[in-house]
């Protein structure tokens, strides 16, 4: 009996939290006019979410591309198709790895920072103080961060893909000596603008919305204690990583099958 009640309690709590998160998300969207009217606020958040993530994104992109080039070459040269390594690197990056890995890095670099910042603002009662001064914290604090993240994410993913392709180029063409012309021309004939690149950008926008929404909600919902903030930060990284992978599967199933 007690166990059953425990299960029920868990489920009710989960559903309640989900509904709370959805209402929070809708409220953020509804009150986001401030983020554009006072665009300076959003620019500042683009700096924190985007510019400061540049280094980790470009270094990871470079290494992911280099590893892809190396591994792809090892396998493809067995079949005498080593020129196709350009296609392999570019397609894996634009379709999957660019948006997904960039979003995972973004979640752990920028998402966790957002959660910690807002959680701490709540713990030190800055958010309540804002409400006291009749400043809407959702419009003033949450909105700009949300739009800053949503704008930064696709740009970061595109940079990740470009740097990755460059990494693959470095390894296979410069180091191993695959023919340069074949590398680029096979890549260009295989990668379609509408099918591969636009879909990759759509993916990264969706991930950007998911990661920032989760990070902001966890921060806003964090219990105002040191433990609460640390728990919320952990939850942000775990939940948004799972959300990215799950959404990626759904989006891939819609985008790249059934042609």
């Amino acid at each position, binding site marked *: 009996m007690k166990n059953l009640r425990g299960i029920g309690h868990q489920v009710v709590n989960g559903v309640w939290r989900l509904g709370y998160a959805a209402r929070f998300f809708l409220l953020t969207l509804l009150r986001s006019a401030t983020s554009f009217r006072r665009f300076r606020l959003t620019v500042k958040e683009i700096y924190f979410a985007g510019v400061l993530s540049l280094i980790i994104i470009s270094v990871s992109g470079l290494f992911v591309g280099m590893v892809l080039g190396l591994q792809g070459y090892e396998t493809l040269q067995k079949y005498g198709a080593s020129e196709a390594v350009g296609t392999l690197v570019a397609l894996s990056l*634009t379709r999957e790895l660019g948006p997904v890995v960039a979003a995972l890095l973004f979640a752990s670099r920028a998402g966790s920072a957002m959660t910690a910042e807002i959680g701490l603002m709540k713990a030190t009662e800055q958010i309540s103080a804002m409400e006291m001064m009749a400043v809407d914290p959702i419009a003033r604090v949450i909105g700009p961060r949300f739009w800053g993240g949503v704008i930064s994410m696709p740009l970061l993913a595109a940079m990740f893909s*470009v740097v990755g392709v460059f990494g693959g180029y470095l390894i296979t063409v410069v180091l191993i000596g695959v023919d340069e012309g074949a590398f*680029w021309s096979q890549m260009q004939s295989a*990668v379609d*603008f509408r099918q591969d690149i636009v879909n990759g950008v759509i993916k990264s926008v969706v991930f950007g919305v998911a990661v920032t929404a989760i990070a902001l909600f966890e921060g806003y919902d964090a219990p105002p204690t040191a433990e609460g903030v640390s728990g919320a930060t952990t939850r942000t990284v775990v939940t948004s990583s799972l959300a990215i992978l799950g959404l990626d599967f759904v989006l891939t199933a819609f985008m790249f099958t059934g042609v």
Partner: protein
Amino acid sequence: MERTVLDLWVGVFVAAGIAALLVLALKVGNASTTFNVGETYRLIAEFDNIGGLKVRAPVKSAGVVVGRVDDIQFENQRFVARVAMKIDKRYAFPKDTSVSILTSGLLGEQYIGLDAGGDSAMLKDGDTVKITQSALVLEKLIGQFLYNKAAEGGAK
């Protein structure tokens, strides 16, 4: 942080992001060679068997990509495959052009080859190409080969 410095960094970031998108589109992808709607015209060809031809496969003439496969449908009246191709407006082909499904390499992807004829009238938008050659199906070829071998063995 100084307001102007922050603005500068965000500007650099956004510009770099847009540049990355452009590089993806032009250098990595085929946006530079994709034929836009309005600059192409449509040709139809019917094949008995298209093998593994797919939508978006290249249409080549003399080895140069001149268009892409736009649509593939099964024609239920005569039981043939109807393939629609989008050809770049810059290229015109004579009425007696022959269309065949070819394979790049032994196991490569399949594409459509256009062999220009000698007619002075050109194909127009929506025309159907009369002379077509279906894809080679490897199983049929092997079957034929084995059959011939067996026939040879029987004659001895």
